[in-house]
Structures are given as C-alpha cells and as structure tokens.
C-alpha cells in the first residue's frame, strides 16, 4: 500500500466520522436546546413540553402498562395496512400488466385515485365499516395500495419491449415472460414501492386513529391535545418517530436480502 492510497483511506475514514459526529450533534443539540429553553423559560413548557417531561411521561405510561397496549394497537394496524396494501397493490399491478386493455380502461381512474387524498374517505369508511379497528386498517391499506399499484405497474411497463421480444424468440409463454423478465426487472421498483408505502400506511393509520379510535398512539395524540397535556402529545410523537424508523429499517433489510441474489 503506497502513501497516497493510505492518505486517501484516512481521508475517507475522517469524512465518515465527521458525518456520524454531525448526525449525533444535531440530535443532541435539538434535545439540549429544547430542554435548556424550557428550563430557562424561553418558552412555556406547558405548551412545548420538554425532553425531561416527555421522558417522565413515557416512564409513567410504561409503568401503567397502557403504553404497550397503545403501541401494540397502532403497530398491528400499521403492519396489517402495510402488508395487505402492498400485497393487493402488487397483485393489482400484475393484473393490469397482464391485461393491457383493462389497464387502459382503468388508467384515468387510477390517476384520480392516486391524486385523491385517501384520508378524505375516512368518514365514509367509518359509516360503511364501523367505528373500530377495521376502519383504521382499511384506511392504512387504501393509502398504501394505490401508490404501490402505480409505482409497481410503472416498473413492469418500463421493461423494454425488446427483452420481451427476445423471450418470444425463445418461445416463452406470457407467464414465463413475466416471471423471468418483467418481475426481476421490476424488482427495484417493487422495493421503492415498499419504502413509500411503509410511510404511507403510518399516515393512514394515524389519521384513522384521529377519527375513530379508543386506543393507539394516534388516539393518545388527539386525547392529549384535547385535554392540553402536551407532554403526552410530544411523548407519543417521539415514540412514533422511533417506530416508523424501525419499520423503515426492516424494509431496508428486506431490500438487502432481495437484491443480494441478483
């Protein structure tokens, strides 16, 4: 290893460290300023809460066992919404790729559905399905389903027609063209769709909980707001951040597994 290369490696290492340090600094700075501001009376901690009050709230909730029930409810709803939303969305994309005429018929409606804020349908869902967990899960599904369909279908349709021509010269059936070319080529779009819809199902579920629930993190946020317990609101939001990040990481891990064989 020569000197220049060693210096290059060293520079890379320093750079990585600087980035990591910056990331931690932002986190510490944010919570530090928040705590400091509350302690020195820059703002009213009753309105903005503070990290120590958030922490105390989390500890109190955890001790009373309520916290786990709220987290469990929201997590279950989100996972159900995400899994079924992506599954159904992908199946719909496959169907529309398979039947181009159906695709052309449904195209304008798909565009409208994609543009429509699905949470506008919340009150309708509650009337149809009832004020309960089912409505919230359906909301989670709805929000992630359309975006999955649109993204995955775009990926499928982007597979060059030339590669499909090649498969035809080899005598492939439509199913073989799909499994051997269209699906592997569309894999990266499928993963992109997963990453989008994991965030989307959180949106659907939290909004759903705002509207109807009796438990869950969304319920805690709304309840805390109504009784002016901002500590409770902030604590729930912080927990939500952690959960959403963990779920995104899980999808990223899945991505690594899926793309490793490629």
């Amino acid at each position, binding site marked *: 290893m020569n000197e220049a290369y060693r210096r290059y490696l060293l520079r890379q290492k320093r750079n990585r460290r600087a980035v990591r340090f910056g990331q931690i600094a932002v986190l510490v700075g944010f919570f530090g300023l928040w705590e400091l501001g509350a302690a020195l009376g820059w703002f009213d901690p009753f309105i903005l809460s503070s990290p120590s009050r958030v922490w105390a709230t989390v500890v109190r909730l955890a001790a009373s066992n309520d916290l786990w029930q709220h987290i469990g409810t929201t997590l279950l709803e989100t996972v159900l919404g995400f899994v079924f939303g992506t599954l159904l969305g992908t199946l719909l994309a496959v169907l529309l790729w398979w039947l181009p005429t159906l695709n052309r018929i449904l195209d304008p409606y798909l565009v409208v559905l994609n543009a429509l804020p699905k949470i506008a349908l919340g009150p309708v869902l509650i009337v149809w399905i009832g004020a309960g967990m089912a409505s919230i899960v359906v909301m989670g599904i709805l929000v992630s389903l359309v975006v999955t369909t649109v993204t995955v279908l775009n990926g499928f349709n982007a597979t*060059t027609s*030339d*590669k499909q*021509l*090649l*498969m*035809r*010269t*080899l*005598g*492939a059936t439509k199913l*073989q063209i799909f499994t*051997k*070319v269209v699906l*592997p*080529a569309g*894999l990266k779009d499928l993963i992109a769709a997963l990453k989008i819809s994991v965030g989307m199902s959180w949106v659907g579920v939290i909004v759903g909980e705002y509207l109807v629930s009796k438990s869950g993190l969304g319920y805690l946020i709304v309840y805390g707001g109504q009784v002016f317990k901002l500590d409770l609101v902030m604590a729930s939001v912080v927990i939500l951040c952690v959960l959403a990040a963990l779920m995104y990481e899980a999808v990223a891990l899945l991505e690594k597994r899926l793309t490793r064989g*490629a």
Partner: protein
Amino acid sequence: METPLLTLSGVTFSYFTETEQTQAVAGLDMEVKRGEFCAIVGPSGCGKTSVLSLMMGLLKPQAGTIAFSEPNLRIGYMLQRDHLLEWRMVEKNVLLGLEVQRRLTPEAKTKALQLLDTYGLGAFRRYYPPQLSGGMRQKVALIRTLALEPDLLLLDEPFSALDYQTRLQLSDEVYRIIREQNKTAVLVTHDISEAVSMADRVFVFSRRPSRIKTILETGFDRALSPLMRRHTPAFLDLYDRAWKEIDR
C-alpha cells in the same frame, strides 16, 4: 434436387396504425437451402427485419406462405442487441432458452456450457453481463441461441451495435462457429461488405415494400474466413455490384 429448407412464396405483410398502413413486404419469393449462408441487404427501413420476423413466426403473413422442409424445424433468432438479462450470470443467460422451452436436461446443459468453453468464454461463466465487453456479450447471445440447437439461424444485424474492429473480429468468429456447427443461416444487414464477405448468396432488396432486386452468388471458398475474403479481388467486384443494385 433437394427441397429447400425454407420456402417463401408470395409473402405479403403490412403494418397497421390508426392513421396509415405501411406495406413492408410485397409478394416475396425466396428459398434458403440446407447448410447455406444467406444474407439480405437493402436500404434501411426496407423491411428486412420484417422478413426475419415472418420466418420466425413472430409475424403472420397476410398473404402467401412460408414453408419448411420438415414440420418441427427449430429456429434460433439473434437480435441486434444482446439483451442479456443483467441479473443472471453468463451461464444462466445461456441456459435461458432451454429453461423457457423446458428442455434443460443435464445433457443439454453440459452441451451448452461446452459451447462457452469452446468459444473462449468458459472463464466468464460466473460473470454478470455488465462485466463483459460488447463483443463478448454478443457472443454469449449467439451461444444462447445455439444452445437450443436450431436447424436454422436468423441473425438480425447482430454486429451493428458494435465498434468497427470488434465487428470484423466477431463476424469472423460467428462465421466460423456457424460453419463448424453446420447451421443454415440468414443474416440481415445494411452493411454490404458484411453481407458479401460472409454469405454464399446475397439477396439485394429494394426499397419498401421489399422485393428481391437481384441475387448474388458470391462463390467464395467456404474455408476462407470473411476477413480473408475482404482481401480478394472478387470481393470488390461483388461489393460494387451490390452497391449499384441498391443505389439504382
């Protein structure tokens, strides 16, 4: 006289769009004998590729017939670009056709992989297509086609996406492979020198709709490689004649 491997009589084909129809092939008569290397040249957009697609059965003629000397003739098609699937290793790409046709027996597999060895790609079996050069990729595509053991090979401008030097080298090599494997081949190209240097017979096509203007018998010794043929006086003469036919 032996019946030709492939006979086209009165083949007619048009493309339709909402606004117009374009006649690509009009009443084409053509024969390809067993073991023969035929080339089709013509101005670009003259319907050469359509003729290959018709032979392959990807397009159905609207009039006329395409007949083969035996019913279950195997046809291999090589496209202008290699279209290797970049998520499959070289060997998996080579086996794609066998896999699709459910003919992936251990013997067929061994044979196909032997082709890779024979033609200098054995060391690259476990490489992914992006790691190969353009010429190597096109050779892999040829072996993918040959793995199906076709009786008739259809080559649709297989060298046109390559740089000039690779093109000359690869056409030499492909010629040798096709001869060694005793295949019948139809090559479509817009490159007159390529057609003249490789083929036994050159079909010069007219502008669209495709008709045969003239057929040139090159009469080269089959042992002579295309590169060597390019240095013979006969090559220049044939090139001139084809050029004048196209130009006229």
